């Protein structure tokens, strides 16, 4: 515990689901957490309140990452708070939409790539001046990046882009002492996942997992906390599959 004392962290998409659990876990480790939200301000307030209740430091930052300058706007707010040192950047915010190949619209495709791939890229770019030797970046990827699950083609492609960024950013930023990794969850019981809402979806999920239970956000967060800590100081370029052994 307290492995993250004195560290500053930004978690995007932290008002609910996996991002919320990550924000709480990093705060529990001792980090000061910036809780990013887009539309769920009240839920972000609740996350901040929960962290403060336990004696942690947190504040909310709002930004719409679908906008072309969303990452730039968010980075400016973050720099205003943390100054010239951000230790942990968790680019977790994501949107999902299930659609067949035929039904996928250009608008959906662009929105998915805007939030899931473009925003993480430019968030790293804009925050790079504050990322120092020992800082690290963690993306939220997905099982969908490497295996066909559901009708998530455009979404899956955005997560494939994320895994590619992990590889290239890790190689590019390694010489500066900055680590870049991802967690790749499978199906997790959150509002975003359609799989968890029907009996059939749950059956498919348990059918492809070695471990026969549904994942909770709290199963993902400790892995991010590990990657964020110095225990993972020799881990970079890695996408950790936190999916109960799916599609092995």
């Amino acid at each position: 515990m307290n492995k993250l004392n004195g560290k500053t962290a930004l978690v995007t998409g932290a008002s609910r689901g996996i991002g919320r659990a990550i924000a709480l876990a990093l705060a529990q480790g001792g980090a000061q957490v910036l809780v990013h939200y887009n539309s769920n301000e009240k839920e972000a307030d609740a996350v901040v309140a929960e962290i403060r209740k336990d004696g942690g430091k947190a504040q909310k930052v709002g930004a719409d990452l679908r906008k072309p300058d969303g990452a730039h706007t968010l980075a400016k707010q973050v720099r205003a708070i943390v100054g010239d040192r951000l230790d942990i950047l968790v680019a977790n915010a994501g949107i999902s939409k299930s659609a067949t190949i035929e039904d996928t619209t250009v608008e959906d495709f662009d929105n998915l790539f805007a939030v899931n791939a473009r925003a993480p890229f430019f968030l790293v770019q804009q925050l790079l001046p504050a990322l120092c030797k020992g800082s690290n970046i963690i993306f939220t990827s997905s099982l969908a990046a490497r295996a066909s699950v559901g009708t998530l083609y455009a979404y899956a492609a955005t997560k494939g882009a994320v895994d590619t960024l992990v590889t290239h950013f890790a190689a590019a930023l390694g010489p500066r002492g900055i680590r870049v990794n991802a967690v790749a969850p499978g199906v997790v019981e959150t509002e975003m996942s359609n799989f968890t809402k029907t009996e059939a979806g749950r059956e498919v999920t348990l059918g492809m997992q070695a471990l026969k239970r549904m994942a909770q956000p709290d199963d993902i967060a400790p892995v991010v906390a590990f990657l964020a800590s110095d225990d993972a100081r020799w881990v970079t370029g890695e996408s950790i599959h936190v999916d109960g052994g799916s599609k092995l």
Partner: protein
Amino acid sequence: MNNPVVLITGGLTGIGRAAAVAFARKGAKVVVAGRRDEVGKALVKELRSLGSEAEFINADVRKEDDVRAMVDKTVARFGRLDVAVNNAATEGDRGLITDQTPESFAATFETNVLGVVLSMKHEVRAMQAQGSGSIINISSTYGHEGAAGASLYVGAKHAVEGITKSVALEVAKSGIRVNAVAPGPTDTGMLTRFTETAENKAVLMRQVPLGRLGLSEEVADGIVFIGSDEARFITGHVLNVDGGHSAN
């Protein structure tokens, strides 16, 4: 999991030794297995000085009687087996494929593959009886990439990763997780023997984005994580702890 019982093969030197020390510092009861009594006894003394109830067991992982006794003695001494680290390995003979012989093949595969198979066979037996456990096989970045002049070692480590995933699928229902940790070039006696010259070692180092060789202690921290409850939803995964070597 407080004070888990941890068994480490090849536990006397390098990464195995570092893992033993790391687990001991976390309060684990540590059994180190190896083939040199004097070295084993000295290490046990050191582990006990860290507060661990440590034991040494003389075992050659190529011999099933040794492996069976190693696991049985561990369970007899501590009542259970929570974490097993199958680390015993040999660098084998470097050389081109045209230089290899049935003997050189056997020398590499008996320790690196048969040793892991026999170890898992008996560890799983003990873990199934208690309905829980975590197995970590030590692979290498050479477990998923090629290297000229190292075909046997590379082949053996590829085998370890395939076996890891298969056994993960077999034993998940018993509450047992099976993962691999894949170190990149790590500053150990094995690497010095393997690279033969300082120039060869420097070539490997230049392939690491973080710009140096890894330390056994850094790999050990990855092993401790993947063996712990924090990694409870990870199974069948190969965790690279390699300074970004695989991403380069």
